[in-house]
């Protein structure tokens, strides 16, 4: 029965082939436009996110105390345990931060941490030297800081150097103290904030000050980039602050959501025009076939049968338009990724090669399915009014009419 309805519907459409093709073309252009714009937006999003992923340590979250009104949620050993027990967290270490000044008044950000083993929580790689030994005043420099110390301070590996720690007494007078550190290692370049800091034993950093807190931050390692957002949300739920490279990805995603939405909005206009074309075609088709519809009713078709026959035609238009639209969208994406890519790169310069990886436009199966579904839904929706109008025809008048 269903296949018969479709074969009759197709025969009707085939009678007015040119009109059928033009209508299908209308919806095809709409679907292709949506797929082209969304795939372009998604491709740029994908490339941007991939660039962030390769350039930064995505699975590292830095937790900080957060002020809620007058209350500061402090970092305690219990908090660290709590975070360690979150699912997807592979490690969490408390840190203490400070700033030391060198003899030449270069200020050095210092992070006190329990371990700086090769690999480890921070996934450290040494360009030279070794990790500091526990319970010592040995330190390890980030890549850029290591360069800076060597160039401006003349501090090389295994050199001892003196830094000043400034504290203030009750009256606000500065009280400086000095400690001697030994630089035992320099890290490889990472592209994040660790390049700029000095890593020291946490116990030593805490001991160097009279009023230092045990912890003022936690470094958290998550097992995979996909779980980072969830862990960050869990940490935020503990009233603590969570920052990291994942935020960049979130902001890229937010930006691209807007861009894709705006682009798609324009494409949707052509889809709406396509839908109006279907409505127009079906109105004309019903008008031309008034007599046939009357005869169909006389031989025993119910209103529902008539609606079904007309909607079957719309469904065929929708499927044809959707499939062709998906195909055209894919062709467009392929063109952008081959000819378009080299053109864009020649205009932008080689430094964008990384941003526009292998493909600029990204057509995903989900996008194609969405295109097809939207096309079919729009087609059926546009046919609803003509179909109901046909079903409401008075059979006697319909048969008598000249159509």
């Amino acid at each position, binding site marked *: 029965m269903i296949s018969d309805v479709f074969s009759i519907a197709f025969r009707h459409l085939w009678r007015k082939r040119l009109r059928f093709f033009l209508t299908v073309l209308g919806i095809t252009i709409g679907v292709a436009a949506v797929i082209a714009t969304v795939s372009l937006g998604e491709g740029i999003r994908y490339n941007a996110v991939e660039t962030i992923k390769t350039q930064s340590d995505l699975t590292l979250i830095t937790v900080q105390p957060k002020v809620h009104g007058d209350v500061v949620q402090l970092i305690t050993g219990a908090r660290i345990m709590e975070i360690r027990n979150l699912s997807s967290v592979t490690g969490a270490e408390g840190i203490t931060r400070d700033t030391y000044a060198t003899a030449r008044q270069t200020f050095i950000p210092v992070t006190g941490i329990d371990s700086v083993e090769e690999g480890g929580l921070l996934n450290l790689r040494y360009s030279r030297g070794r990790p500091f030994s526990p319970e010592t005043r040995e330190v390890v420099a980030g890549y850029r800081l290591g360069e800076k110390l060597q160039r401006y301070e003349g501090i090389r590996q295994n050199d001892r150097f003196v830094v000043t720690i400034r504290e203030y007494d009750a009256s606000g007078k500065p009280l400086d103290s000095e400690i001697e550190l030994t630089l035992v290692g320099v890290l490889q370049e990472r592209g994040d904030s660790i390049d700029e800091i000095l890593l020291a034993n946490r116990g030593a950093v805490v001991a160097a000050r009279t009023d230092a807190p045990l912890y003022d931050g936690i470094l958290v390692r998550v097992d995979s980039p996909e779980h980072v957002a969830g862990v960050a949300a869990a940490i935020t739920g503990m009233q603590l602050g969570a920052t990291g490279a994942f935020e960049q990805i979130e902001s890229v995603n937010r930006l691209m959501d807007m861009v894709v939405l705006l682009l798609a909005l324009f494409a949707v206009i052509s889809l709406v025009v396509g839908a109006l074309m279907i409505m127009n075609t079906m109105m004309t088709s019903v008008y031309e076939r008034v007599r046939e519809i009357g005869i*169909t009713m006389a*031989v025993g078709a119910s209103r529902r049968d008539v609606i079904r026959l007309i909607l079957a035609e719309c469904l065929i238009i929708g499927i044809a338009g959707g499939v062709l639209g998906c195909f055209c969208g894919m062709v467009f994406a392929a063109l952008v990724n081959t000819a378009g890519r080299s053109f864009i790169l020649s205009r932008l310069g080689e430094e964008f090669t990384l941003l526009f990886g292998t493909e600029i436009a990204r057509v995903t199966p989900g996008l194609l399915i969405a295109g097809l579904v939207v096309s079919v839904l729009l087609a059926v929706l546009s046919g609803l009014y003509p179909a109901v109008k046909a079903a409401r025809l008075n059979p006697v008048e319909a048969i008598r009419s000249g159509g």
Partner: protein
Amino acid sequence: MTSDTRSIIEVESVSKRYTETVSALRDISFSVAPGEFLTIVGRSGSGKSTLLNIIGGLDHPTSGNVRISGALTDYHNHHALVRLRREMVGFVFQQFNLLPAMTAADNVAYPLLFHGRPRQERQERALELLSLVGLADRTGHYPAELSGGEQQRVAIARALAANPPIVLADEPTGNLDSKTSREIYRLLRELNTDQGITFLVVTHERDLAGYSDRSIELLDGQVVA
């Protein structure tokens, strides 16, 4: 009026008014026995077609009742009217009214689509009926490739597709020459006697009424004979 259980069609005081002053039918009553061949004659505009459409459930009366096989037709119930058109009656029109995009066989099989019958069965039934009306060699032809008389034979076959007990024919020979007209009437009469189908045929040609068992005449929406 008492209902006669032996009648297949009972028309009781049926009137059809378009406005207060314009009436198509005025208080029409008659009944048709099963297997009867009844012609309704009258000039054009006498309301014959309207009466036929009311009996077949395509139109509705302003007042009065129609019973088909004893069942009162409920003109407010869409599904009841659909069932009536599907199962009880077959229509034959003056204009043939075949669907131009379909072959003769597909036209004949078309009503069975709405019965939900499988394609195989519909096709077999169509071929059987087309050979019954003498068009076994025209099954694959489109209406435009057939003569008027052949088209009307296809339309008659279509009216019989669902095996209805009643066929309603509205000026079935109005568009045909007199020789073809007589052939069509002979065919209708044959189907009537061989298959026991009740025929209600509207015509303005009195001489063709001679083929019928009985004839009633309408004048200005009223039965005069």
